[in-house]
């Protein structure tokens, strides 16, 4: 049977106090709970006895302990190092991938009739069927190039020049496509296009977005943007062909 709360609380107070007077008064009022009261009295007495008798031992001299890093601390450091290593690895990998993704001038040799020759330090480049001598590091429309092509169709020649100069070409309808031969030394791509246009009857219009529109006509009023700074240029038509 559960002891009523009021009696239970009083019983605890008496058991904790332990005075004989309080015990007698409780026993007088609640004789039915005497046994339980004495159990609690004994329990409290033993508990306190253990508490009183416990020794505190000798007080050791205080010496601050060395701060030993917890496992999570050095693991955190290790994780940081791994993270930094990983980031640098992937950053390097990505940069090298980007560099590889750039159109490599050498690959053109496989897809086009270009033949690579080592950069010339002076004099005339070695003549092959089609020879290009250019600086691969700067394949831009303004880079000065030395190009020589023999027996090549105009359209193919223009496309090769565009690939080298990293520009896109758009051809207007009725563009002639003769087989030609040309040679330029120290010309930029745009200068070559302008000069080829003068000789072969077309005009390259810079669209401003990296695209050059090739129109098969010459505007008599069109003024060349600037005189080319090329050293030498030569163009010859070998065979006339049908327009495309």
């Amino acid at each position, binding site marked *: 049977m559960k002891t009523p709360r009021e009696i239970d609380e009083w019983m*605890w107070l008496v058991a904790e106090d332990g005075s004989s007077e309080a015990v007698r008064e409780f026993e007088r009022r609640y004789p039915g709970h005497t046994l339980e009261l004495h*159990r*609690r009295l004994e*329990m*409290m007495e*033993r*508990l*306190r*006895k*253990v*508490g*009183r*008798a*416990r*020794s*505190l*031992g000798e*007080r*050791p001299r*205080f*010496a*601050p*302990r060395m*701060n030993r890093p917890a496992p999570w601390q050095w693991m955190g450091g290790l994780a940081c190092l791994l993270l930094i290593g990983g980031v640098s690895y992937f950053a390097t990998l990505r940069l090298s991938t980007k560099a590889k993704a750039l159109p490599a001038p050498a690959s053109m040799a496989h897809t086009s009739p270009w033949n690579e020759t080592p950069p010339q330090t002076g004099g005339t480049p070695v003549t092959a069927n089609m020879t290009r001598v250019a600086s691969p590091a700067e394949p831009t429309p303004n880079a000065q190039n030395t190009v020589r092509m023999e027996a090549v169709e105009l359209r193919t020649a223009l496309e090769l020049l565009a690939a080298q100069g990293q520009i896109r070409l758009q051809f207007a309808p009725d563009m002639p496509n003769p087989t030609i031969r040309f040679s330029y030394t120290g010309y930029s791509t745009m200068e070559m296009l302008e000069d080829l246009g003068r000789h072969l009857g077309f005009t390259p219009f810079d669209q401003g977005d990296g695209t050059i529109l090739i129109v098969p006509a010459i505007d008599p009023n069109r003024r060349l943007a600037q005189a080319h700074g090329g050293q030498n240029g030569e163009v010859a038509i070998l065979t006339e062909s049908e327009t495309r």
Partner: protein
Amino acid sequence: MSVVLEKSALLALDEDHLLVDRFNAGDEAAFERLYTKYYDKTYSIARGVLLDSEDASDTVQEIFTLVYRHLGRFDHRSKFSTWLYRIAVNRSIQESRRARYRYKHVPLTEAIPETPTEAGPHRDPKIQTALAKMRPADRLLITLFYWEELSLQDIAQTLGCNANAAKTRLYRARERFREHYESEDA
């Protein structure tokens, strides 16, 4: 009388704060004084939670090392003793969890018995076993109230709760202790 008591409490409070300030200013001896003054009480808290005197002694050193390192952060808003006891309670409970894990992972032949085996005239296996079966937080309440004879107000400050909450928690802990104690007879 009460004026005198209040004055002495105020002096003690001021003395602690003074010692803290002196230590923070570089006086190592001030910390020695705090250590000497509060060692016994801190040890009692640790022992109440851990039951084992060696573990308690070890934990007290860790507690004072923590206090030594972080005394600069003590903001004087509470009594130094309250701040210290709170650290002692938290650290001891933390250590008791670690000890329980440690004992779980030692071979059976090396495992410590359920009943603490401390020798001495105070040894009472029934009480010790009942205490050992309790949760550390409950055991702490019992030892602070019945062994250290701290008031409910002091216990409340140590635990960081109000006096009513401390009273309720103490009564519950006492009831659980009685259950464990009586189960030993059965």
